[in-house]
């Protein structure tokens, strides 16, 4: 394995992030703080506790998940799309690097960035509402799995996109609505029975639910099911990436 190449890609991507670190961190921290102000303090103060957890605390895992998903996709898709756009991808394709090493480098860097942001969001949440973590190892596992899975999805979007519009299309039109409808701000038990069933087709429900369980021990679906669905989604992303590299889809002619 060309470990040197993985390190080079990883460092290069992280360096790109550090160049704009203030805006990379400030933007999600400010928007999350606003969520806490609006949903936690202004509106949330009128809500009753959900399963014994205050509303402000209840939304913390969902907000971290929301940020983790969107940032993983944004970082990974841009990371691979930009060299395609500028043409510098020629160097990666002509280097003695396997596809697996390319994925580890780019996806590893994207996942790292979103995990760091997730932890910053968690620290920010502590400033606003009481937060406790009942199952820290499970929390870290979900954090890692979700960051890796959605960074892989971002990588796929970055390869598929042939313009900046497409790069934004999937996150804006699919991921953000799915996240908002995935129980970030509510328990799906609060929905009518029909919509509860429909919601179960939303993969984000399982991520948010499992992640919330790691914090407060409460969940909409069983922890085991959440973990299984996360692995299924990870497997799907890996299968698509394997196909992309086997066929050279949008990378090689």
């Amino acid at each position: 394995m060309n470990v040197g190449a993985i390190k080079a890609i990883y460092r290069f991507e992280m360096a790109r992030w550090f160049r704009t670190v203030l805006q990379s961190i400030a933007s999600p921290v400010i928007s999350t703080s606003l969520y806490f102000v609006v949903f936690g303090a202004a509106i949330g103060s009128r809500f009753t506790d959900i399963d014994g957890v205050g509303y402000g605390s209840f939304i913390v895992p969902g907000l971290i998940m929301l940020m983790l998903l969107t940032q993983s996709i944004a970082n990974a898709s841009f990371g691979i799309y930009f060299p395609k756009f500028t043409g510098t991808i020629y160097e990666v394709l002509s280097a003695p690097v396997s596809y697996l090493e390319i994925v580890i480098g780019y996806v590893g860097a994207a996942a790292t960035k979103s995990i760091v942001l997730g932890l910053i969001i968690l620290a920010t949440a502590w400033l606003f509402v009481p937060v406790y973590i009942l199952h820290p190892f499970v929390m870290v596992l979900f954090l890692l799995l979700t960051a890796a899975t959605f960074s892989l999805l971002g990588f796929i979007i970055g390869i598929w996109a042939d313009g900046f519009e497409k790069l934004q299309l999937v996150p804006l039109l699919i991921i953000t609505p799915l996240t908002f409808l995935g129980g970030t701000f509510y328990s799906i038990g609060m929905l009518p029975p029909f919509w509860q069933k429909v919601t179960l087709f939303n993969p984000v429900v399982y991520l948010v639910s499992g992640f919330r369980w790691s914090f407060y021990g409460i969940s909409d679906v069983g922890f085991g099911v959440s973990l299984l669905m996360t692995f299924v989604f990870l497997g799907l992303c890996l299968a698509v990436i394997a196909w992309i590299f086997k066929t050279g889809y949008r990378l090689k002619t």
Partner: protein
Amino acid sequence: MQPIISVQQLSKTYAPRNAGGQPFQALKDVSLDIRKGEIFALLGPNGAGKTTLISVICGIVTPTSGAVVADGFDIQKQFRQARDRIGLVPQELTTDQFESVWNTVSFSRGLWGKPANPALIEKILRDLSLWDKKDNRIRTLSGGMKRRVMIAKALSHEPQILFLDEPTAGVDVELRQDMWNLVRKLRAEGTTIILTTHYIQEAEEMADRIGVISKGSLILVEDKAILMRKLGKKQLSIHLHDALDSVPEALATHKLTLGANGTELVFTYDSQADRTGITRLLQDVSAAGIRYNDLATKQSSLEEIFVSLVRNDSNGAKP
């Protein structure tokens, strides 16, 4: 001697770009051996297949059929070993605009899995007159400087084989001379260099061997000197004292042409032949009472040979 690159019956057909479009065959059954340590110039008009050939060898484009072996390693089955030996300077100035020169060159070395070697990077940057720009972001550099950065990136992993795709396109005369000197220096150090160029003068100046590609087919590969001797014409011009209306009947056997408004007789001959016919011609000219005041000889340039080859190929004639 075993070739350092062996291209065997390589073909590449691009799929249609849109529904209803036609597939495009960019390479047709190309076979080529590159000798270790030589400078090989690949000439061809726009769209002839030069860049596609280079891109296949470097792993950027997947061939439709055929094989390429680099230093004994199949470029697809043993891509790590093959690519480890190859450096590429592409035609387009594709650089990371926001990175510094030092970082982007170091990144290239890392991508090839080589350990950090600041001393080597410094030497490369100094050789390319980039040392004082090492901390500059690439977007602040001129086009010529960016071209040097591309070369520095390719050299950073110490390739044995270097592909230069139009290395001097759009660079000024001084930089072109610098590039040529660099290429000669690299060759002296044992690097095999394959370059494509639109500047025939460049190939004439530097190449050991020439390959001409046209419409995806390699129509000729030859030592430059032999090519110029075989296909190059040598002409003797006789500058006349008095202008003629036509070539005199007494000189008809010499197949002369009349030029420069009748003040020049032009004789085409083979300089390698035992008898060039020059002595006999001059005797006949004197015998015909034609006075002349100067003689000049001219060898046709590689450019003239190239244009003639490509034109013949377009007309379906053999070179």
